[in-house]
C-alpha cells in the first residue's frame, strides 16, 4: 500500500515561494527543456530534412543552374554562382522553416492541443512560454544553420575561409529570429483554424525567398521592387552572410543597418508575442 501521506507531503519540495522564485528566473528555460524533449521524438526526420535540403538546393541551384550562369555571364558579384547563391540559400531555408515551427504549433498550443495551458497553471508565465517556445525553435535553427554551413564548406563555397564563414550560423539564427518572432506573435493573435498561414506561406515567405536578392542581386530588379528586399529579413541576413562567406563588399553603414534591422524586428516580435500570449491566456 502506497504511503499517501508521503506522496502528498514528503518534505522534499521547497517552499512555494522558492519554487516561484526559481520559475520567475528560469521559467522560459523550463519551457525550452520541454520543447527539446518533444523535439527528440522527431529529431531523426528533422535531421534528414536538415541535411537533405541544403544538398538538394546546392546541387540544383548552385551546381546545376550555376554552370549555366557561369558559362553565360561569368560571375555574379565577382564570384561563381554557387558561392553567390549558397549563403542566400542558407538564410532563406532557415527563415522559411519558421513557417512550419511558429505557425501551426502556436495554434496547437492555444487551441488544438491546448499545450500552453499546462505550464500556464504553474508558476511559469505566458510571456515565459512565448519566449521559451521561440528559443527552443532557435536552438533547432542553430543545428540547421550549422549543418548547412558544413555542407557549404564541403562544396567549397566559402572562399573567405572556413572560420570566418562560420559566422553564417549566428546570422542565420538571427534572421530566423527576426522573422520567426513576428510570425509567432501574429499566429498567437489568430482565433480560427489558421487558414491565414497558407496565405503567409505564399505571399510573404515565398516572395522573400524569390525577390530578396537570393538568386540575383537586388540591383538586378527594377528599382520599384527594391522595397521587397529592404523590408525582408531574408535580404538583410543574406547580405551579411555573403560578407562572411565570400567577402561581398558593402558600405559599413549598410552592414550596421542589416544588423540593427534584424535585431529590431526580433525585439519587436518578442515583445509583441509576450504581450499577446499574456493577454490571450489571461482572458
Amino acid at each position, binding site marked *: 500500500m*502506497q504511503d*499517501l*501521506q*508521503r*506522496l*502528498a*507531503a*514528503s518534505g*522534499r*519540495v*521547497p*517552499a*512555494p*515561494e*522558492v*519554487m*516561484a*522564485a*526559481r*520559475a*520567475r528566473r*528560469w*521559467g522560459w528555460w*523550463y*519551457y525550452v*527543456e*520541454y520543447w527539446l*524533449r*518533444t523535439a527528440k*521524438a522527431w529529431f531523426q526526420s528533422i535531421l534528414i530534412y536538415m541535411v537533405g535540403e541544403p544538398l538538394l538546393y546546392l546541387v540544383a541551384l548552385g551546381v546545376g543552374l550555376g554552370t549555366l550562369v557561369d558559362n553565360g555571364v561569368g560571375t555574379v558579384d565577382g564570384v561563381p554562382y554557387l558561392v553567390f547563391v549558397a549563403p542566400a540559400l542558407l538564410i532563406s531555408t532557415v527563415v522559411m522553416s519558421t513557417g512550419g515551427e511558429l505557425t501551426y504549433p502556436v495554434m496547437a498550443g492555444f487551441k488544438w*492541443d*491546448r*499545450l500552453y*495551458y*499546462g*505550464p*500556464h*497553471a*504553474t*508558476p*511559469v*508565465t505566458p510571456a515565459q512560454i512565448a519566449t521559451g517556445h521561440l528559443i527552443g525553435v532557435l536552438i533547432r535553427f542553430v543545428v540547421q544553420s550549422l549543418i548547412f554551413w558544413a555542407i557549404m564548406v564541403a562544396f567549397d563555397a566559402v572562399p573567405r575561409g572556413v572560420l570566418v564563414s562560420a559566422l553564417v550560423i549566428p546570422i542565420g539564427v538571427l534572421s530566423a529570429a527576426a522573422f520567426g518572432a513576428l510570425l509567432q506573435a501574429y499566429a498567437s493573435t489568430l482565433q480560427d483554424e489558421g487558414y491565414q498561414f497558407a496565405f503567409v506561406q505564399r505571399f510573404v515567405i515565398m516572395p522573400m525567398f524569390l525577390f530578396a536578392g537570393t538568386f540575383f542581386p537586388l540591383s538586378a530588379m527594377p528599382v520599384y521592387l527594391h522595397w521587397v528586399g529592404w523590408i525582408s529579413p531574408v535580404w538583410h541576413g543574406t547580405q551579411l552572410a555573403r560578407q562572411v562567406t565570400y567577402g561581398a563588399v558593402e558600405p559599413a553603414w549598410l552592414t550596421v543597418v542589416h544588423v540593427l534591422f534584424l535585431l529590431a524586428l526580433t525585439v519587436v516580435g518578442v515583445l509583441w508575442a509576450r504581450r499577446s500570449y499574456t493577454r490571450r*491566456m*489571461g*482572458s
Partner: protein
Amino acid sequence: MPPVTSVVPGDPIVVAEDLTKVYGDNRAVDGISFSISQGESFGLLGPNGAGKSTTMRMIGGTLTRTGGTMRVAGLDPAERGPEVRAHLGVVPQQDNLDEELTVRDNLIVYGRYFGLPHSYLRTKADELIEFAQLTEKAKAKTTALSGGMKRRLTIARALVNEPKLLLLDEPTTGLDPQARHVLWDRLFRLKEVGVTLVVTTHFMDEAEQLCDRLIVIDHGRIMAEGSPRALIREHSTREVVEVRFGAQRNAAVVDQLEDVATRLEVLPDRILVYTDDGEAALEEITGRGLNPITSLVRRSSLEDVFLRLTGRTLVD
C-alpha cells in the same frame, strides 16, 4: 514583498469576496463570496456556463478578474501569480497532456515548471505513476491511454509539487462509471491525508461523494451554500416519488396529486412528488386509481435542490 502567510489546518486557504468577471455585457461571475478552509473539500456545483470554471481560473490567477478580492494562502493571485500557483495543483477541464511524450516525461516536464530538480523528479514520477495506477504504462506515449487513465495522469501531474490545494475542474466529465469510481477513490485518499480539494462539477453524485461543503452557482451567482446533506434538508424533502403517466397525461393528473405532496415538480417526461414518506405517497397515488406507467421512490438529492433553486435540471 509581503510575507507569505503560513498555512494552518482549519484556517481559510482561499477567500473570495464579491468576485466578478465580466465579458462584454455577460457577467460570467457576478459578485460571489466564499471561503475555503485548509483540509476541506469544497464544491462548486452548477450547470454548464454557470461560472464555475471562470471562478476556478481566478483562484489560480490565470484569469484576470474584473472586480472583487481574492486571497490564496494570503496572496493576491493577480499580483503574485507564480507564488500562488506554486501552492496549487490544477486539473483543468480539458486534459492538456503532451500526447507525444511518455507518461513519465509528462510528469517530469511538469515538475520542471516548478523549478524542481531532476533528482527529486525521478523518484517522484515513479510514486505518482503508482498513485495513478499507470505503472504498466509509464513508458507508453500518452496518446495510448484511455480517457480515465489520462485523467488520472492529469491528477498525478497536479500533485508533482505536493500542493496543499488541489483545483479540479470537472474531474470525471466524460468518463464511464467505473473510471469515475476509480478516480473518486484516488481523490478521497488525497482528502484523507489533508489535501484541500476544490471541485467543480455538474454531477450531483460527484458533489455528494466528494464535497464536505459546496456552493450552488447559477448565472454567476451563489444560489445556496452548505453541506450536501444540509442543502437537501433545507431545500427539499426527505424522499421523492418519480411518477410517469406518459407525456399526454402528465399535465392532466397534476391537480389530483397536489394534496399528496409537500411540493410537486412537473418535468416534460415525469412528475416529481416531494414528500417525507415516499412509499405512503405512492400508495396514495395508486389508491386513487391514477396508475402511473412507471414509479420510483428515492431519497432526495442535490439534483432536487438545484431544481428547486433554479427551476431547471442540471444536465439536460
